Protein backbone atom coordinates (compact mmCIF):
# COMPACT_ATOMS: atom_id res chain seq x y z
CA UNK A 1 0.00 0.00 0.00
CA UNK A 2 2.67 2.39 1.12
CA UNK A 3 4.86 1.40 -1.79
CA UNK A 4 2.16 1.82 -4.40
CA UNK A 5 1.33 5.24 -3.04
CA UNK A 6 4.96 6.24 -3.24
CA UNK A 7 5.10 4.94 -6.76
CA UNK A 8 2.02 6.87 -7.68
CA UNK A 9 3.48 10.08 -6.28
CA UNK A 10 6.72 9.39 -8.11
CA UNK A 11 4.93 8.66 -11.37
CA UNK A 12 2.84 11.77 -11.06
CA UNK A 13 5.84 14.02 -10.50
CA UNK A 14 7.76 12.24 -13.26
CA UNK A 15 4.86 12.84 -15.64
CA UNK A 16 4.63 16.47 -14.61
CA UNK A 17 8.33 16.90 -15.25
CA UNK A 18 8.08 15.18 -18.63
CA UNK A 19 5.18 17.34 -19.72
CA UNK A 20 7.09 20.51 -18.86
CA UNK A 21 9.98 19.21 -20.91
CA UNK A 22 7.80 18.28 -23.86
CA UNK A 23 5.62 21.37 -24.12
CA UNK A 24 7.63 24.14 -25.68
CA UNK A 25 7.27 27.19 -23.51
CA UNK A 26 6.63 30.05 -25.89
CA UNK A 27 7.52 32.67 -23.32
CA UNK A 28 10.95 31.10 -22.99
CA UNK A 29 11.67 30.63 -26.69
CA UNK A 30 15.14 31.94 -27.37
CA UNK A 31 17.49 32.27 -30.30
CA UNK A 32 19.08 28.81 -30.16
CA UNK A 33 22.79 29.46 -30.56
CA UNK A 34 23.71 25.80 -30.91
CA UNK A 35 21.13 25.05 -33.61
CA UNK A 36 22.05 28.19 -35.55
CA UNK A 37 25.80 27.50 -35.46
CA UNK A 38 25.65 23.88 -36.64
CA UNK A 39 27.21 23.44 -40.08
CA UNK A 40 25.42 20.16 -40.80
CA UNK A 41 21.65 20.11 -41.34
CA UNK A 42 21.17 16.80 -39.49
CA UNK A 43 23.05 18.11 -36.42
CA UNK A 44 21.04 21.31 -36.53
CA UNK A 45 17.76 19.38 -36.77
CA UNK A 46 18.85 17.24 -33.84
CA UNK A 47 19.51 20.25 -31.69
CA UNK A 48 15.97 21.54 -32.24
CA UNK A 49 14.63 18.17 -31.08
CA UNK A 50 14.37 16.02 -34.20
CA UNK A 51 16.21 12.85 -33.20
CA UNK A 52 16.05 11.22 -36.61
CA UNK A 53 15.17 13.23 -39.75
CA UNK A 54 13.87 9.99 -41.32
CA UNK A 55 11.03 10.06 -38.81
CA UNK A 56 9.72 13.48 -39.86
CA UNK A 57 6.08 13.31 -40.91
CA UNK A 58 5.27 14.24 -44.48
CA UNK A 59 3.77 17.70 -44.43
CA UNK A 60 3.85 18.33 -48.16
CA UNK A 61 0.07 18.58 -48.53
CA UNK A 62 -0.51 20.49 -45.28
CA UNK A 63 2.27 23.04 -45.58
CA UNK A 64 1.77 25.57 -48.36
CA UNK A 65 5.27 26.49 -49.43
CA UNK A 66 6.01 29.10 -52.03
CA UNK A 67 9.58 29.38 -53.35
CA UNK A 68 10.96 30.21 -56.78
CA UNK A 69 12.14 27.27 -58.88
CA UNK A 70 15.07 29.35 -60.06
CA UNK A 71 16.57 32.18 -58.05
CA UNK A 72 18.78 34.41 -60.17
CA UNK A 73 20.09 36.22 -57.11
CA UNK A 74 20.82 34.00 -54.11
CA UNK A 75 20.96 37.07 -51.87
CA UNK A 76 17.19 37.56 -52.15
CA UNK A 77 15.09 34.40 -52.34
CA UNK A 78 11.45 35.06 -51.43
CA UNK A 79 9.78 32.41 -49.27
CA UNK A 80 6.17 32.14 -48.14
CA UNK A 81 4.86 29.52 -45.74
CA UNK A 82 1.33 28.73 -44.57
CA UNK A 83 0.80 25.81 -42.23
CA UNK A 84 -2.60 24.12 -42.34
CA UNK A 85 -1.64 21.78 -39.51
CA UNK A 86 -3.77 22.47 -36.42
CA UNK A 87 -1.90 23.74 -33.35
CA UNK A 88 1.12 24.91 -35.33
CA UNK A 89 3.52 26.24 -32.72
CA UNK A 90 6.66 26.83 -34.65
CA UNK A 91 8.08 26.92 -38.18
CA UNK A 92 11.77 26.35 -38.97
CA UNK A 93 13.45 27.11 -42.29
CA UNK A 94 16.62 25.31 -43.41
CA UNK A 95 18.68 25.92 -46.55
CA UNK A 96 20.52 22.64 -46.83
CA UNK A 97 23.79 23.88 -48.33
CA UNK A 98 24.23 27.20 -46.56
CA UNK A 99 27.33 27.38 -44.31
CA UNK A 100 24.92 27.21 -41.36
CA UNK A 101 21.74 25.56 -42.67
CA UNK A 102 19.24 26.88 -40.08
CA UNK A 103 17.98 30.14 -41.61
CA UNK A 104 15.14 31.19 -39.30
CA UNK A 105 12.42 30.05 -36.96
CA UNK A 106 9.07 31.54 -36.02
CA UNK A 107 7.26 31.01 -32.73
CA UNK A 108 3.48 31.44 -33.03
CA UNK A 109 0.80 32.00 -30.43
CA UNK A 110 -2.90 31.31 -31.12
CA UNK A 111 -3.21 35.09 -31.62
CA UNK A 112 -1.41 35.09 -34.97
CA UNK A 113 -1.94 33.04 -38.11
CA UNK A 114 0.57 30.22 -38.81
CA UNK A 115 1.77 32.14 -41.82
CA UNK A 116 5.01 33.92 -42.62
CA UNK A 117 6.77 35.37 -45.63
CA UNK A 118 10.30 36.73 -45.83
CA UNK A 119 13.44 36.75 -47.98
CA UNK A 120 16.44 34.51 -47.46
CA UNK A 121 19.98 34.08 -48.78
CA UNK A 122 21.11 30.88 -50.47
CA UNK A 123 24.75 30.14 -51.18
CA UNK A 124 24.03 27.59 -53.92
CA UNK A 125 21.38 25.35 -55.48
CA UNK A 126 19.87 23.33 -52.64
CA UNK A 127 16.78 21.99 -50.98
CA UNK A 128 14.94 24.31 -48.64
CA UNK A 129 13.33 22.35 -45.82
CA UNK A 130 10.42 23.80 -43.89
CA UNK A 131 9.75 22.05 -40.60
CA UNK A 132 6.50 22.64 -38.75
CA UNK A 133 6.15 21.77 -35.08
CA UNK A 134 2.49 21.22 -34.27
CA UNK A 135 1.16 19.67 -31.06
CA UNK A 136 4.64 18.29 -30.35
CA UNK A 137 5.06 16.60 -33.76
CA UNK A 138 7.48 17.63 -36.50
CA UNK A 139 6.33 17.77 -40.16
CA UNK A 140 8.40 18.57 -43.24
CA UNK A 141 7.92 20.04 -46.67
CA UNK A 142 10.91 20.59 -48.96
CA UNK A 143 11.55 22.20 -52.32
CA UNK A 144 14.64 22.57 -54.45
CA UNK A 145 15.72 26.06 -55.48
CA UNK A 146 18.20 26.49 -58.32
CA UNK A 147 20.51 29.38 -57.54
CA UNK A 148 22.29 31.14 -60.40
CA UNK A 149 24.45 33.51 -58.31
CA UNK A 150 25.11 32.57 -54.69
CA UNK A 151 24.18 35.06 -52.00
CA UNK A 152 26.44 34.47 -49.01
CA UNK A 153 29.91 35.57 -50.03
CA UNK A 154 31.28 38.40 -52.16
CA UNK A 155 29.00 40.60 -54.18
Amino acid sequence: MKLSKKRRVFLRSALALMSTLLIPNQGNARWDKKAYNEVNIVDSMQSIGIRNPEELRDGSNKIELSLPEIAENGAIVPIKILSKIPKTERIFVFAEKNPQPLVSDYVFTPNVEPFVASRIKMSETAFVHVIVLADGIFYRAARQVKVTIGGCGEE
Partner: protein
Amino acid sequence: MDKTVRFRVRLNDKIADVKIMIFHPMETGYRKDKLTKNMIPKHFIHTVKIGHNQKPIMQVHWSRSVSKNPYLNFRVPNAIGGDELSIAWEDNMGESGVGTTIIA
Protein backbone atom coordinates in the same frame (compact mmCIF):
# COMPACT_ATOMS: atom_id res chain seq x y z
CA MET B 1 10.41 55.80 -32.31
CA ASP B 2 13.42 55.09 -34.49
CA LYS B 3 13.45 54.91 -38.24
CA THR B 4 14.72 51.34 -38.61
CA VAL B 5 11.24 49.87 -39.02
CA ARG B 6 8.69 50.52 -41.72
CA PHE B 7 5.13 49.15 -41.60
CA ARG B 8 2.47 48.49 -44.18
CA VAL B 9 -0.80 47.16 -42.79
CA ARG B 10 -3.92 46.19 -44.67
CA LEU B 11 -7.04 45.29 -42.70
CA ASN B 12 -9.35 42.87 -44.41
CA ASP B 13 -12.23 41.08 -42.73
CA LYS B 14 -10.71 41.58 -39.23
CA ILE B 15 -7.40 40.10 -40.35
CA ALA B 16 -4.47 42.50 -40.42
CA ASP B 17 -1.97 41.64 -43.14
CA VAL B 18 1.23 43.18 -41.82
CA LYS B 19 4.35 43.81 -43.87
CA ILE B 20 7.42 45.19 -42.19
CA MET B 21 10.88 46.11 -43.36
CA ILE B 22 13.80 46.69 -41.03
CA PHE B 23 16.79 48.66 -42.24
CA HIS B 24 19.77 46.49 -41.34
CA PRO B 25 22.89 45.26 -43.21
CA MET B 26 22.49 41.57 -42.21
CA GLU B 27 26.19 40.88 -42.83
CA THR B 28 27.14 37.21 -43.10
CA GLY B 29 30.75 37.61 -42.02
CA TYR B 30 31.81 35.99 -45.30
CA ARG B 31 32.08 39.21 -47.28
CA LYS B 32 35.25 41.15 -47.93
CA ASP B 33 35.50 44.94 -47.87
CA LYS B 34 36.60 45.82 -51.40
CA LEU B 35 38.77 48.75 -50.26
CA THR B 36 40.46 47.47 -47.13
CA LYS B 37 40.41 43.75 -48.15
CA ASN B 38 39.32 42.98 -44.60
CA MET B 39 36.44 40.64 -43.83
CA ILE B 40 33.28 42.50 -42.81
CA PRO B 41 32.24 41.14 -39.40
CA LYS B 42 28.96 39.27 -39.13
CA HIS B 43 26.16 41.59 -38.10
CA PHE B 44 22.62 40.31 -38.07
CA ILE B 45 19.28 40.59 -36.28
CA HIS B 46 18.67 37.44 -34.25
CA THR B 47 15.38 38.19 -32.52
CA VAL B 48 12.24 40.13 -33.40
CA LYS B 49 9.35 40.30 -30.94
CA ILE B 50 5.91 41.20 -32.24
CA GLY B 51 3.05 42.56 -30.15
CA HIS B 52 -0.62 43.32 -30.70
CA ASN B 53 -2.06 45.86 -28.24
CA GLN B 54 0.98 45.33 -25.96
CA LYS B 55 0.49 41.54 -25.90
CA PRO B 56 3.23 39.31 -27.41
CA ILE B 57 1.85 37.33 -30.34
CA MET B 58 4.86 36.07 -32.25
CA GLN B 59 8.60 35.71 -31.91
CA VAL B 60 10.99 35.63 -34.84
CA HIS B 61 14.52 34.20 -34.82
CA TRP B 62 16.83 34.97 -37.71
CA SER B 63 20.34 34.13 -38.82
CA ARG B 64 22.77 35.80 -41.19
CA SER B 65 21.00 33.86 -43.98
CA VAL B 66 18.13 36.36 -43.90
CA SER B 67 18.40 38.98 -46.65
CA LYS B 68 19.65 42.52 -46.11
CA ASN B 69 16.97 44.97 -44.94
CA PRO B 70 14.77 42.08 -43.79
CA TYR B 71 11.18 41.90 -44.95
CA LEU B 72 8.57 40.10 -42.90
CA ASN B 73 4.92 39.45 -43.64
CA PHE B 74 2.54 38.02 -41.04
CA ARG B 75 -1.22 38.01 -40.34
CA VAL B 76 -3.00 39.03 -37.18
CA PRO B 77 -6.58 37.86 -36.72
CA ASN B 78 -9.12 39.68 -34.50
CA ALA B 79 -7.69 43.04 -35.45
CA ILE B 80 -9.66 46.27 -35.74
CA GLY B 81 -8.89 49.86 -36.60
CA GLY B 82 -7.12 51.66 -33.77
CA ASP B 83 -5.25 48.54 -32.61
CA GLU B 84 -1.55 48.92 -31.96
CA LEU B 85 1.10 46.73 -33.54
CA SER B 86 4.64 46.79 -32.25
CA ILE B 87 7.92 45.18 -33.08
CA ALA B 88 11.25 45.14 -31.26
CA TRP B 89 14.46 43.79 -32.78
CA GLU B 90 17.87 42.92 -31.40
CA ASP B 91 21.09 42.04 -33.19
CA ASN B 92 24.32 40.19 -32.41
CA MET B 93 26.22 43.43 -31.77
CA GLY B 94 23.85 44.56 -29.05
CA GLU B 95 22.00 47.04 -31.25
CA SER B 96 18.22 47.20 -31.12
CA GLY B 97 15.24 49.04 -32.50
CA VAL B 98 11.51 49.37 -32.04
CA GLY B 99 8.59 50.34 -34.19
CA THR B 100 4.87 50.76 -33.58
CA THR B 101 1.93 51.55 -35.76
CA ILE B 102 -1.79 52.05 -35.30
CA ILE B 103 -4.04 50.11 -37.66
CA ALA B 104 -5.97 52.59 -39.78
